[in-house]
């Protein structure tokens, strides 16, 4: 469905100069600052998969999404979505993708939500009957009925995000790019967004590329993740495999009688009861727990290693 090969994007902007006449110099300069935002990225995503596209701030995630939608032209490399090169065939590509950017909205700020949804229906030429059905489904899934007629500027962040999700899916695109769709949402709203994603993926075999900093989203939705940093792919594969491969050891945490807390790494293959026995022989244990490695600790470790 989506094929990316050696994708690279270098941003080139006129050098900015300090000082009072700096702006003027910037205007006429031929010197450019270059920034490699995406650096030789390759991956393939089959139809119907939900993939987490993860990385620290500034890793190049949004830039990749912008190239996948065809809005940004790659500096080099190849992108193919459904057999088309998105930036060469923007119009056809546009019909097959829906996009949500958590940080900005496609809804018209001053108009009631329904107007923006109607506009989407018109722009993608969704037949009237189909539109009504689609809108009904969105309203039911996302609970839009209460604020369909409210101007978007009066919506809460969570309500607006639900409106944006509806706008992105009204014309049933087979591919959905979600760039931080849960940013700033409360627990329940996040849950609603996740359920919506699961539902669309299941109902229409929609392919989803999900960017998020909330690893709970990833754990709930994705079996595969692509991890990038500084524009390069660090890991591409299953979450389970990642945790197994990179997992820090499990740890035994014991609280001792004198309010002291001590932790012991459990080496691979070591017997836990034996370790507890050994610790208990030398101390008075008040309480104990075992910390399992989770995705967050794994990813923290990978980010840290890549920065080094």
């Amino acid at each position, binding site marked *: 469905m989506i094929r990316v090969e050696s994708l690279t994007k270098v941003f080139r902007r006129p050098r900015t100069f300090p000082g009072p006449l700096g702006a003027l110099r910037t205007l006429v300069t031929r010197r450019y600052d270059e920034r490699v935002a995406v650096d030789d990225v390759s991956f393939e995503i089959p139809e119907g998969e939900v993939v987490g596209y993860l990385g620290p701030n500034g890793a190049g995630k949004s830039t990749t999404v912008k190239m996948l939608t065809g809005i*940004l*032209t790659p500096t080099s490399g190849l992108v193919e979505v459904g057999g088309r090169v998105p930036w060469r065939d*923007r119009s056809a590509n546009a019909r097959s*993708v829906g996009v949500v950017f958590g*940080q900005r909205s*496609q809804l018209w700020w001053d108009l009631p939500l329904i*107007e923006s949804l109607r506009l989407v229906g*018109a722009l*993608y030429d969704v037949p009237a009957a189909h539109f009504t059905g689609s809108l009904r489904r969105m309203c039911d899934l996302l609970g839009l009925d209460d604020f369909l007629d409210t101007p978007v500027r009066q919506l809460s962040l969570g309500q607006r995000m639900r409106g944006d999700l509806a706008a992105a899916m009204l014309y049933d695109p087979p591919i959905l790019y979600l*760039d931080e769709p849960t940013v700033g949402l409360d627990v329940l709203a996040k849950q609603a967004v996740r359920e919506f994603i699961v539902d669309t993926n299941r109902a229409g075999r929609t392919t989803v590329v999900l960017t998020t900093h909330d690893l709970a989203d990833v754990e709930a939705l994705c079996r595969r993740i692509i991890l990038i940093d500084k524009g390069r792919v660090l890991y591409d594969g299953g979450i389970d495999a990642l945790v197994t491969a990179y997992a820090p050891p499990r740890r035994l945490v014991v609280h001792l009688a004198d309010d002291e807390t001590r932790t012991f790494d459990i080496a691979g293959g070591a017997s836990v009861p034996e370790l507890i026995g050994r610790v208990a022989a030398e101390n008075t244990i008040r309480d104990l727990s075992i910390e399992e490695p989770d995705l967050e600790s794994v990813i923290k470790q990978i980010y840290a290693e890549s920065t080094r």
Partner: protein
Amino acid sequence: MIRPLAGMARVGLRFQLAYRSDVIMTVLALIAQVFLLRMVWTSVYGGAGQARGLTLEALLAYLSLANLQAFATTPIIPLIAHFRIRTGMVFFDLSRPTGYLPQMAAFQAGHTLGGLLMLAPAVPVVLLVGTITPTAQPLGYAATLTLGYVISVMMSLLICVIGFWTLETGAISLLYRLISQFFAGTMVPLSFFPGALGVLAEALPFKYMGYVPAAIYVGHLSGGQVVQAMIVEVSWIAGLAVLLWAVWRRAHRRVVINGG
């Protein structure tokens, strides 16, 4: 192709209606401007019967019409495009199956229609203050004004596109507004412009948004001049279409979307 554009025009119309209070201010400003111009020009004329072939009556009617036209057709899209490019919201305009320029043009058309609807109540007042009587050349007036409007929209589309290079069209569109209103002849009819300024004003396309239709309405331009104006207007439209197409093709390739 029709439905997407109709949808966009509808949003433009609704957008205009959402800013009702702005329109009330606009109407008040329009009436005030026509009133002030009337005072100034009446005093300039003193007892003189006519100047440069315009009677005071015709001049006042001309100024009222030219201002009514200018207020009703001032383009909004450079402001909209500027905001959307700056915030990165233009991403969504570019991700539609319909082209960016047709979308913007349709938005502008809807917005203008909304403006006309809301200006309607002010029209009798302006006609009265301007002592405007029915025209002898309704067809010539309507045709040159419509073509002039098309030119105006194309020029503002050009400014929208320039925003993809400069990422900043605030100052440009302000300057454009100033220049276009002046050279449209909303304060002073073009036939009063001296020497080189007159030549410049004649050469620029802004006169088709104000001076030319209004002068046709009051009978200052007539017959062969009307036909000639329409031919030049159509040539401007053709030229601008080619220019827009060429500039847009280049802009398209250098799009950056702010924010992530």
